[in-house]
């Protein structure tokens, strides 16, 4: 895998990588992909879909209590009990 491919994936995954990590990741991914590529040889039929059943429930409000303080205390940045985020636009 080329370094520029790793850079593209890192951008998508929102992770900064050092040059040496890009190089080692490129090698690791080659090796991992080399291993997982073996599934290409498996003959499967597409109709083997046995996905789980949908689980439905009524959209009801419940009174499960969360500790508000605990949640607020987790905000890395906040103002007046609201989480503060960076400008998006």
């Amino acid at each position: 895998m080329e370094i520029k491919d790793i850079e593209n994936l890192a951008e998508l995954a929102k992770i900064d990588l050092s040059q040496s990590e890009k190089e080692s990741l490129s090698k690791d991914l080659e090796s991992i992909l080399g291993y997982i590529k073996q599934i290409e040889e498996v003959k499967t039929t597409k109709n083997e879909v046995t996905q789980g059943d949908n689980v439905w429930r009524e959209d009801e409000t419940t009174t499960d209590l969360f500790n508000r303080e605990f949640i607020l205390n987790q905000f890395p940045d906040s103002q007046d009990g609201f989480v503060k985020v960076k400008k998006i636009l």
Partner: protein
Amino acid sequence: MTIDIKNLTIKKAGEMLRSGEVTSVEIVKECLKNIEEKNKELNIFLEVFDDALDQAKKADEMMKNGKGGELCGIPIALKDNILITGKKNSSGSKILENYVASYDANVVKKLKEAGAVLIGRTNMDEFAMGSSTENSAYGPVKNPLDPTRVPGGSSGGSSASVVAGMALGSLGSDTGGSIRQPASFCGIVGMKPTYGGVSRYGLTAMSSSLDVIGPFAKTTEDAEIIFECISGKDKMDATSRDVLSKAEILKISPRKVIGVPRDFLKEGVDKDVLKNFEEVLEKLKANGFEIKDIELPYTKYSLAVYYIIMPAEVSTNLSRLDGVRYGLRKEGESMFDTYKKSRSAGFGAETRRRVILGTYVLSHGYYDAYYNKAWEVRRAIAKEYEEVFKDVDFVLTPTTPTPAFKFGEKSDPVQMYLSDIFTVSANLVGLPSISIPSGFSSDNLPLGALFTAPIGKDFSLFEMEKYIK
């Protein structure tokens, strides 16, 4: 009196507690003493809860009032990815180093109701990704049986805590073998329930179509006591379900057929492991079991399938960690820059590797070739097990291809991943599976036998220990 925690079962401790022979405070103090003596060296606990003795006092009260069940007063250790209100929970990662949980996991709620003493949170591979605990942001756990070796992973701390006499039982999570492999490496019992058999509400998500919480203990009887307490449907986890009860399992006429996929044992398996495995088969035969060779041609692709589906789910699950609502934040110029800086500072090397790999297999152009294909093979594997279980009651393999390895021995990721070769298929299919101690290697390292049963037949697994003794 002195209590030998290392040789005390939950069953026995419960009897002693109920008869008044010992108190929970005494048992917990003994565990704390072992932690005090050994934790610095072994790095098993990330935190020992300062209210452990208070919990023990409460349990003793409960016991006095005749309300104590089998887990009342029993010290249980929890993997650092299971939430307890008001306690830190880092999932072995720097990005959640100071995260404090705002609610109890369903398993924690159940353990608290049973009067169990939650003694502390145990070290683990970051976000449960690893087979040795070498990926923990807080340093690796050392195997109490031989500190030059790994305890297995990712629930290595939970497994080691039981062997080191720091708790009588513990909880871990198993995504590809993370309970069974460390149980085998430490010489104890580790059980992965049916997918959904235990609620995951309050478990930090790694790979949601695979993750499940399960028990570690010295005996299958003890593991069963914990499983009985924590299992069952929970409205907060839509994937949770009830499994067949013990009474229902006992009603099913005991068929005694064990399937062995011989193909899996052909290469890459240590000779001591193979020798021990044959001995296990002999014991089973002597106990009236029929051993049948089975073929699972799709299952040999399990690990490849796993290393597509798991990183794909990891990359999506961990995208919530961006330093906005909780966890580490490193300020950047823009919003994206802040995400990047926070995630780069907070994630360790293996986490980055899997997030990048997951992003790759899900990216446009590769999605069909990898992710969709992996799901097709996964379904074929499920179907194949369904067929096999028409003829056999259990599938049996060794738990791991080798006994516990040394630190740094598996520096190549693929080599490390291969230590889960026998365990992953149960996760892909959702089957209940247990590792039971089966003997020792020539170097005196513990080995395990891995029994896997059909979906919902979790309670049948606990019966197997007596047949391989």
